[in-house]
């Protein structure tokens, strides 16, 4: 990864950080606790996921947090002593985020 890509990754990291901070806790409470508690039925949840608004929401909530993870994990892994990986580490991190975004787009469009 060339050094000049840094502002791009940092912007995506930052945008993902904002999205994750605002939206992830409540969404996690919904899938993790409201669903097992029977507050959302399977039919309603399926219907909700198929609505255009939720699809956009899911795309944002999958893609940007993945880029947030990628950038933060890259440097955390280096801080934890994984410097020897060289270019493989950023390639794995940003590659995962890009692949995840492509998959999310594919899933949400063909739904």
């Amino acid at each position, binding site marked *: 990864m060339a050094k000049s890509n840094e502002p791009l990754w940092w912007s995506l990291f930052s945008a*993902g*950080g*904002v999205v*994750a*901070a*605002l*939206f*992830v*806790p*409540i*969404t*996690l*409470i*919904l*899938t*993790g*606790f*409201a*669903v*097992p508690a029977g*507050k*959302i*039925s*399977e039919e*309603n*949840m*399926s219907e*909700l*996921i*198929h609505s255009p608004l939720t699809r956009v929401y*899911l795309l944002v*909530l*999958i*893609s940007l*947090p*993945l880029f*947030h*993870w*990628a950038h*933060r*994990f890259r*440097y*955390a892994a280096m*801080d*934890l*002593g994984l410097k020897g990986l060289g270019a493989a580490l950023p390639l794995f991190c940003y590659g995962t985020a890009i692949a*995840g975004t492509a*998959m*999310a787009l594919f*899933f*949400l469009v*063909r*739904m």
Partner: protein
Amino acid sequence: MTGETQTVSPKAAGAKQYIRPVPANWWLKRKTYFLFMVRELTCLAVGGYAVLLLVMAGCARDEQAFHAFFQWLESPFSIALHLISLPMVVYHSITWFNLTPKAMVVWRGEERVSPVLIAGSNYVAWLIVSFLIAWFFLGAA
């Protein structure tokens, strides 16, 4: 070529750069280092949850696959994963909101807008957004 200063990098001159060895457990040595690492590692919960949503999106088209996913959400394993992730993502939110006034210094005329006000407005936005999303998904369901 006269009058130009030539800079020779230490590497080109054959000098070896000294890199002080850092033990892998450096972040366990001080509380602030530890909290820094905890903050950085919240990205595992953030990224992991994105993967869960990706799986959900992948299952949504097929009724049987979605049924299996929904049943998995009700399993103790899923609840345990969510229980571990929740404090991590909340810690991310808190540290993120508290950092915004440091990353974004706002001036109103001659006066600097109080960092407490900037962080505070983040918390208010967080509360409103959380309420709206819960209302949207629980109200519709």
